């Protein structure tokens, strides 16, 4: 039962991340491969505040959200000045830079050995160490996240973002502010990552840089692509499927040194196959 519950919780956290990536990549059309880095910032900020400073989880969560919003806006600023291919380089660079910070700023992040013993949050006097309690919290966060996402999609703001993806110049020509639209999208996407990162650290009570590296960013893009870009259903199906996949691979008897690369290999194959034969994913719209 606990095994199933932890699958649900992890899937819920990754659904929040997929929504965040979907907002940037799918809806606004900013190809970002550094979303795992932002996720990492959220996880590290919240975890080290609760672990080292003894802040309550709620306050640390807010701090993590603020940090992620600021960072994601800063990271997406180059996309306002440089377009297309230049931004891809910027995005890869940001991912490498963040990984370097996570690995080398040992006094704050614990270096490559990570941060162990992150306290589990206490909500209304209830310890959420048991997955059965934690699942309520993550489900609550997910419902709020999905509601916001759906509201944004249907609002004029959502349509503006879609229009920016289709044709930036046309949007500017009818007098809408492209810059503000992109910044708002990045900020919202950062808030999702902040929540997801905080929950991730609190649930596993251990984080290390390997959860937030380039491979993790590729996983996030795969989730959006497999599920389908630009829809909420897509961002739910993708993570639910891809988080479940390693559990299925665990039943096949392969040595653990190959299991990691093989899993990533499967993600790569999924990316290529979907891009070739079904760019809209399982439940998405045209990318």
């Amino acid at each position, binding site marked *: 039962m606990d095994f199933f519950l932890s699958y649900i919780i992890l899937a819920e956290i990754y659904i929040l991340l997929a929504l965040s990536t979907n907002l940037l*990549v799918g809806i606004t*059309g900013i*190809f970002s*491969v550094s979303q795992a880095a932002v996720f990492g910032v959220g996880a590290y900020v919240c975890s080290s505040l609760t672990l080292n400073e003894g802040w309550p989880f709620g306050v640390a969560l807010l701090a993590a959200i603020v940090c992620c919003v600021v960072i994601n806006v800063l990271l997406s600023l*180059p996309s306002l*000045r*440089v377009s*297309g*291919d*230049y931004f*891809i*380089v*910027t995005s*890869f*660079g*940001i991912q*490498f*830079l963040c990984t*370097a910070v996570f*690995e*080398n700023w040992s006094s704050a992040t614990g270096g490559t050995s990570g941060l162990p013993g992150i306290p589990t949050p206490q909500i209304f006097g209830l310890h959420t160490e048991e997955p059965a309690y934690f699942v309520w919290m993550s489900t609550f966060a997910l419902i709020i996240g999905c509601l916001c996402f759906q509201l944004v999609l249907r609002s004029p703001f959502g349509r503006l973002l879609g229009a920016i993806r289709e044709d930036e110049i046309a949007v500017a020509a009818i007098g809408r502010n492209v810059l503000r639209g992109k910044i708002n999208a990045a900020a919202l996407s950062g808030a999702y990552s902040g929540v997801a990162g905080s929950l991730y650290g609190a649930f596993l009570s251990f984080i290390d840089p390997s959860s937030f590296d*380039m*491979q993790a960013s*590729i996983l996030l*893009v*795969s989730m959006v*692509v497999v599920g389908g870009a630009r829809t909420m259903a897509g961002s739910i199906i993708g993570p639910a499927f891809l988080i479940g996949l390693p559990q299925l691979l665990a039943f096949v008897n392969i040595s653990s*040194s*190959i299991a*990691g*690369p*093989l899993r*990533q*290999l499967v*993600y*790569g*194959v*999924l*990316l*290529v196959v979907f*891009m*070739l034969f079904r*760019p809209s994913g399982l439940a998405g719209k045209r*990318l």
Partner: protein
Amino acid sequence: MLALQLLVDGIINGCVLGTISISFTLIYSTTRMFHVAHAGVFTLGAYFVWTFVQAGVPGPVAVVLGVACCMAVGAAIQRYFYQPLAARNATPLVVMIASLGLLAIIENGIAAVYSQNVLTFSEWWGKAVVPVGGLPITGAQILSVVMGLGAYAFLRVLSQRTLLGRKIRAVASNPFLAEIAQVKPKLVYIWVYAIGSMIVCLPSALIAAEFGLRPYNGLLYLINASIAMIASGLGSITGAFVVSILLAVLQNLSLLIVPSQWSIGVTFILFILLMLFRPRGLFAPAR
């Protein structure tokens, strides 16, 4: 003395980076496609050479065989991967994601077959030190300079003096007009990918001989190389080569004040500064 040593090392590293950069510039300036999977071809090159050496083939022959394999891989990627995507009218975003997926497949395929551990060449004469003007220069460093200048000269002659070079320039400037003039852009693209992949095998093998083979390192080198390409103003092979040397020198000199694990940060800050002040690159004509 240390500064002089770092300066010389920087120039030499710049020749290696420059070789990667011109191979990528050739592909990018002709096809206008940010070929992320080039990092995979780069990694693959070293593993090809290593496999041939393990099989008992003498070193220089192994390099030639590796180069031939890379050429075939590059041509195959364009013919059987990008052309089907183009035939389906894939948007740049879709092509980008597919290319990222291909990179994940190549890197993790290598990791699954050859393990994630660092592999090394057993014997290698490049470690021998030759004092040049009081500075200890290794054989590998001399080879780097020869390789860099050789690859540069090869590409210059190819693009200026041969029929294929003229076709490449024609397709690069206007694929539509080129097609009318009986130049087959699809065929030229295949050649461009083959030549670019062929060249990138050399620095790959050299870096592997010096520092060992790692499956996940390619992207970092490619990002450095593409920063040099963008900084030079896109599309000029001479510019890309010169800026690569400049970039490597700056990176090396920064070691005087910044520890080496942060050198990605230094590169990246240089890139951001450049994007802010000269977004068209150093050698681009002023508008």
